[in-house]
């Protein structure tokens, strides 16, 4: 069986993360905020490929997303940790395939990423910290996590099947 990294569909889906982040389709958003595409891709990848591969994928995704977003904030550390954590979960006990479980993990991941970015905003923009506690931050975290959690059973389940399928039938 050929390694997961070499499957054309896997490579295409990984490239889709920065592409969809750029595209940000307005019809796929909740009150203007889109889903976290990195979480939707990283979760099934880490569950199938393990903690090391999950962490590395988190690093690569984080670097890509940092490159296309405004400002100096970074998503690298939190994506690496999430990739590692989800990889460990995938290696323990029963495989995680249920839609509710996937949705819950994606929701948690999205909230963690949101809180991490919010924290960086608070640290880097100390000149007006009170304003950053306005409903905007909470609104962004909630909208993004809810949408990610709802889309995950659809998108991540499909990716899970692709990542698990041997190359000959992919």
């Amino acid at each position, binding site marked *: 069986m050929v390694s997961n990294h070499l499957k054309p569909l896997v490579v295409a889906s990984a490239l889709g993360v920065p592409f969809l982040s*750029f595209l940000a389709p307005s019809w796929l958003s909740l009150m203007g905020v889109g889903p976290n595409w990195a979480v939707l891709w990283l979760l099934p990848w880490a569950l199938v490929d393990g903690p090391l591969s999950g962490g590395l994928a988190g690093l*690569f995704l984080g*670097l*890509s997303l940092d*490159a296309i977003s*405004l400002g100096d*904030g970074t998503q690298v550390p939190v994506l690496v940790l999430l990739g590692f954590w989800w990889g460990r979960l995938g290696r323990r006990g029963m495989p995680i395939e249920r839609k509710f479980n996937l949705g819950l993990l994606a929701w948690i991941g999205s909230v963690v990423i949101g809180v991490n970015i919010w924290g960086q905003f608070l640290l880097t923009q100390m000149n*007006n910290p009170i304003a950053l506690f*306005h409903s*905007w931050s909470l609104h962004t975290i909630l909208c993004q996590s809810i949408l990610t959690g709802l889309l995950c059973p659809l998108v991540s389940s499909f990716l899970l099947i692709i990542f698990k399928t041997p190359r000959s039938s992919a």
Partner: protein
Amino acid sequence: MPKLRLHLWRRLWPWFLLATCLFITRWSKGAGFSDAYAFITRPFWPGPAQKEWIQSGAELEQQIKLDLLEQDNKRLRKMLSIERSTKSGFVSVPVISRRPKGWWQQLELGKGALDGLEAGLAVMGPGGLIGIVQSVTPMTARVQLLTAPGSQVGVWVTRTQRHGILLGMGTNRPQLTFLDKDPKVMEGDVVSTSPASTLLPPNLPVGVIQSLDRKALPAPHASVQLLAAPEAIDWVQVQER
């Protein structure tokens, strides 16, 4: 041992290469990604369909601008030693990606350094200023919207000629923090870029004061409704230098 090392190196060198490429992309703030995205989506860039809608917005902008320019003219005539021109040209640029809400509120434009765009240029939507070019790649430019957290622009209230700083808060309405304790402004006053600004052209219309907090400390601040909404804009005007 050397065989094992060679074997490891053969297996790992593509990943090192990928990591190096991504680090370079990260360091250059997405030069490769933005350009590839611009190249792939070029057939789908906005056409002239929005032209009429933009024209009606542009008329409103021109009206406000005319008033501002007249006032500016009067003021300049009183001063003998001003040489700076208030007129600068603008070039039309398509918007190829927009994220007006969320953590990073930004636009991606379909022209870049090859077309003469550079960081710091003013970006106008139909109605008024919407942001400032923050970085450019050869084929694209990234715009920080006025609503983005961290955005700071020097503005003034045209009627009372009181200066302030327009701060992006992440919400639809940025906050105007006045420099005076008594700015003598009221709801409905027009806000434009400051003539004292060395970064932006003076008197570009920005927005209208929506609400005012006179008791705020250390200085009063106001909530500003922007004239141009970035949510549905397909074309913008970028200042020429």
